[in-house]
């Protein structure tokens, strides 16, 4: 237990080392980088119209800019809760959002366009009433379609909606004009409806508490507008993504194997995209490993408190706390716990997301490990404890040397199962925009608009990890079995 504490301490120091105080004031921008040309990832960096504008303004105002990627649903919340200074993510100005944050002057007037398949019967926007429509969750398209047309299918990002349309799962996709144009260019089987569904203004979101920043930002933005600089930036990135789309469209082949080969090249080799999977895998392993340690630490502690309370009637207060912990953790989804820990518990603290995930998954796993181990402790014959005590060992010594080792051996298969579940559960870390393995696949998908290869690759890697973990546990089990 002592070692675990030390390890945790080391971990905290390790991660907090990364966010030392800078001399220049810090400006944290949040975005969802799956929205070309406004924001997208290129060569492991977030680029696009929004990051470029904010970068220039930040530089002129004397800020050090840091950009964080997260789900679009969360960017407004991040600004509102003070986790970030500015949200720049192709955000449309709406009345609801105005209640939560302040908007800068709009920097772009954007249209919401409708994408359909080439062979679709839909010819104009009035025919959308009775077809299934895909949107990106939390976007203006989502709000507009929900209010004025019908309940849409909500996807976590735009490429996923387009992939669904392409696969025939839905009939139309409503998204902002610029990305819509890019998507259609890359997919010969898709087309745009001629007229726009609605018009929107894009602006940056800043916390209501930060009036100073808003004022300074607006002043710079207006200057850029006047000088034509703004227009040049927008044009530059529109051209760049359009060229990128042309480049991706070149990875098409006539034969089946030729197509497989070129898809593979596009998804993993080009621009060294496999790096997204490697980085994601490292984070997944890091999170799984450390949350496993935390889970085992918490699990053993809680299990011992609970069974001590059951057997001796002592520690009733701690037992109550443990029960509350178990009820809450096992009674709520791990995604919700992760989001609460990120946005509420560490809402006001700048903390590394990997550390947040380790804490969240560790606390979650601990509850399950605790009950597994408690089951193991209960399964050990009462005589074992009595033998230990009759030899003059204390309760703790008997637990540690006699009961727990036997219990651990008995529950190893169940524990192994929990570890496998944990490994796979970390895939929801993407909810706080953590670049884990699953998210790595998402990023590739958002660049290549191909669902098949990135998803299969991610699945194969998880499978390989689970198989390795299973065989390791099998070896451990066999080893412990020998000692009987």
């Amino acid at each position: 237990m002592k070692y675990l504490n030390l390890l945790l301490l080391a971990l905290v120091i390790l991660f907090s080392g990364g966010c030392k105080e800078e001399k220049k004031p810090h400006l944290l921008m949040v975005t969802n980088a799956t929205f070309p040309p406004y924001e997208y990832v290129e060569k492991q960096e977030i680029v696009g119209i929004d990051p470029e504008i904010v970068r220039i303004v930040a530089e002129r105002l004397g800020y050090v800019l840091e950009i964080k990627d997260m789900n679009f649903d969360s960017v407004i919340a991040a600004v509102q809760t003070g986790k970030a200074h500015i949200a720049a993510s192709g955000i449309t100005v709406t009345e609801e959002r105005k209640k939560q944050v302040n908007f800068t002057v709009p920097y772009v007037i954007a249209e919401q366009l409708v994408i359909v398949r080439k062979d679709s019967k839909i010819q104009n926007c009035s025919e959308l009433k009775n077809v299934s429509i895909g949107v990106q969750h939390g976007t203006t398209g989502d709000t507009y379609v929900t209010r004025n047309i019908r309940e849409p299918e909500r996807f976590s990002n735009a490429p996923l909606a387009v992939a669904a349309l392409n696969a025939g799962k839905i009939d139309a996709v409503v998204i902002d004009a610029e990305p819509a144009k890019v998507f259609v260019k890359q997919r010969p089987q898709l087309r745009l409806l001629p007229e726009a569904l609605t018009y929107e203004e894009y602006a940056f979101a800043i916390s209501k508490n930060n009036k100073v920043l808003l004022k300074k930002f607006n002043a710079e933005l207006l200057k850029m507008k006047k000088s034509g600089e703004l227009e040049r930036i927008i044009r530059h990135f529109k051209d760049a993504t359009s060229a990128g789309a042309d480049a991706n469209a070149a990875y098409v082949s006539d034969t089946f194997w030729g197509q497989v080969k070129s898809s593979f090249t596009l998804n993993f080799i080009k621009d060294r995209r496999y790096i997204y999977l490697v980085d994601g895998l490292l984070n997944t392993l890091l999170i799984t490993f450390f949350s496993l340690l935390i889970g085992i630490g918490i699990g053993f502690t809680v299990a011992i408190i609970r069974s001590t309370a059951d057997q001796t009637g002592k520690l009733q207060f701690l037992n109550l706390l443990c029960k509350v912990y178990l009820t809450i953790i096992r009674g709520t989804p791990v995604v919700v716990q992760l989001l609460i820990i990120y946005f509420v518990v560490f809402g006001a603290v700048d903390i590394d997301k990997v550390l947040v995930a380790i804490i969240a998954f560790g606390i979650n796993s601990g509850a399950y490990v605790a009950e597994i181990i408690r089951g193991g402790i209960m399964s050990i014959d009462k005589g074992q404890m009595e033998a230990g005590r009759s030899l003059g060992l204390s309760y703790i010594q008997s637990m540690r040397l006699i009961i727990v080792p036997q219990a651990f051996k008995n529950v190893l298969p169940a524990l192994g199962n929990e570890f496998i579940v944990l490994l796979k559960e970390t895939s929801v870390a993407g909810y706080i925009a953590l670049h884990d393995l699953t998210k790595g696949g998402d990023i590739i998908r958002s660049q290549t608009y191909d669902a098949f290869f990135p998803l299969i690759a991610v699945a194969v890697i998880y499978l390989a990890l689970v198989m390795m973990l299973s065989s390791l546990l099998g070896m451990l089990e066999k080893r412990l079995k020998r000692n009987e």
Partner: protein
Amino acid sequence: MSEVVFKVRDLVKEYPGLTALDHVSVDIKRGEVVFVVGPSGSGKSTFLRCLNLLETPSGGQIFFKEDEITSDKMNVNTFRQQVGMVFQHFNLFPNMTIRKNITMAPVTTKRSSAAEAGETADKLLRRIGLYEKRDAYPGQLSGGQKQRIAIVRALAMNPDVLLFDEPTSALDPEMVGEVLTLMKELANDGMTMIVVTHEIGFALEIADRVIFMDHGRIAADGTPDEVIKNPENPRIKEFFSKVL
């Protein structure tokens, strides 16, 4: 007069709806071999388990040598290190080798160093002829071997008293002999022993003193001849006529 090891005064143990021990008072002297016998449910096992506080007495006092062990101030662990216990179901630690079973407690409680404990274990194992099994695990031993290891495990703590709780009841008949032989050797060596058992014949053979318990009380207390062979109490007479 030899030293009193256990002094029990008005010991009461109550369970919900049952009085297992009803004001039991008795002295056990150093070097005595005391057999506690009686019908099932008479409280003899509860009495034994109260002596090393595996059961918490509901009332009364127990003194071990000079100290009152029923007092809250008593360090139970230090006290128990001086009183060995042998269980009906052996309760060896299946996750440890035979040698580790024997050395673990003396080393953990710092009664001896690892080297000393190892030496003692080897000596004891040689004495009972199970030295070859020192690296085996309990699962690989017969019932009689297990019980002899359990006795050795208790002996390794160098206790003042050994408590036996029906040590042969879980054994196949052909295994009983080897355990009784070891117990007899210990008795001859002068070990203070309190034995709860149904082996009346064995009691006659080695007991200095027999306590007959009935309904949570001591119904008779005397030499084996007095209690077993010529009991005054008709109930005791009836009991022994059945078991002998």
